[in-house]
């Protein structure tokens, strides 16, 4: 479904991604974790070409992400992306946020788009907030609207870039709950997250990344029980300490 082949990226002379290889199968949930500044966010952002790469190849479905002949808009409309800072459109109500792209990109009829928007808001538990503006919602609610917004394009793949890192602790659970539901519905997901509980419960695989290199790609139970790479051992030990 998603494949990274020798993906490298430099900022000037600084190498942020270092020969990344990996596959995410259809219906799989992959959690990417690692110390901050390790390139996790950069990596997930290369999947819908929010970041370019200097070397290698990324395939999503049948499409080469960096093929300049393919429409980047079409590619992106098939990949849901959830940001750390939500990035909801503050001038639009929750349901307008969700319906905007289906109307303007897919050319959906308004009635149809709003029906679908309400359905999705219901799915994330926010049907009653359909007319609220982002500024009137809590962080957790905003992030759930953002997930509904991404789902509105019916993407076969969802990417989450630290979706709970900007949230107050008491709101993390409601967002993770929605993500768990998605996973159990069979969505293909890549999540950059520090929520190790989520990784343990939901992920099929954990990729541990440090200094732009994937040092470990394994099942969550193995990753937490017997991390092999010293950096991964230290990372797991640091998490345990909390």
């Amino acid at each position: 479904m998603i494949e990274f082949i020798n993906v490298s990226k430099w900022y000037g002379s600084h190498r942020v991604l270092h020969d990344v290889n990996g596959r995410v199968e259809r219906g799989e949930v992959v959690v990417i974790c690692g110390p901050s500044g390790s390139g996790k966010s950069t990596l997930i952002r290369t999947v819908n070409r929010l970041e370019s790469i200097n070397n290698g190849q990324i395939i999503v479905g049948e499409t080469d992400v960096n093929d300049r002949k393919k429409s980047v808009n079409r590619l992106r409309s098939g990949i849901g992306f959830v940001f750390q800072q939500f990035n909801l459109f503050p001038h639009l109500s929750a349901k307008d946020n969700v319906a905007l792209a289906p109307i303007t990109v897919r050319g959906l009829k308004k009635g149809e788009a709003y029906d679908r928007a309400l359905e999705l808001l219901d799915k994330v538990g926010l049907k009653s907030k359909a007319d609220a503006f982002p500024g009137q919602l809590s962080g957790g609610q905003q992030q759930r609207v953002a997930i509904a917004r991404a789902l509105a394009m019916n993407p076969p793949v969802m990417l989450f870039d630290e979706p709970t890192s900007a949230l107050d602790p008491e709101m993390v659970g409601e967002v993770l709950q929605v993500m768990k539901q998605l996973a159990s519905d069979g969505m293909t997901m890549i999540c950059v997250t520090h929520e190790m509980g989520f990784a343990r419960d939901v992920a099929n695989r954990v990729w541990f990344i440090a200094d732009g290199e994937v040092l470990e790609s394994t099942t969550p139970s193995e990753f937490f029980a017997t991390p092999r790479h010293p950096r991964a051992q230290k990372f797991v030990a640091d998490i345990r300490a909390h």
Partner: protein
Amino acid sequence: MNLHSLAVLADPNVQLLFLRGTLTTLELFFASAIAAYALGALLVVIRMSGWLPSAAVGAFVEYHRNVPSIVQIFVWYFGVPQILPQSWHTYANAHLSAFFFAVVALSLNAAAYISEDLRSGIRAVPTGQMEAARALGMSYLKAMRWVVVSQAVRGAAPALVNQALGLLKTTSLALAIGVKELMYVARQLDGETYATFPSYLTPTLIYLACTLTLMAIGSRVQQSTRFTR
């Protein structure tokens, strides 16, 4: 207080004079405002798209910001026709009025300010907004249209209303090239009747009525499009 000079305002001819002057002022204002907002938006597009070197637009903006408006009006009315080819010059003298040149000068001047207000409005929209729109598959233009510009205009609205107020007041400078607008007729009345106080009290009240109306419309529009961040 000696208020008997106010009696001049009861004269229907005087009332007609002020009515005509007011209409000319409003014509100047609306013609210039429409041109200015359109051109202001176009300047932002030119600057952001890189069709022209951004220094060219920058020079345009700086000229209009740093040269007194009355000089700009004189340059257009007295200066520019002279450097045109003879045939154009003759055409301009025959067909283009002071009103026309006043609108050109006023609208170019206001457009420079408006483009700066719009540009800073666009810059004030966080980059995450464009990114989120593009991540949904919207093209650059769609993202600008539906996400960035619609927020930028709301953010820039107070400044844009200010430009409208400024433009309305600046139309009074057109009297200097003989456009028979509100201040022109006021001076005319003063010269003919020596009723100086009512001659200038009247335009004061008329300008105030117009600007207060503009402000009311502006805050009405802002309220109906308000959103909470």
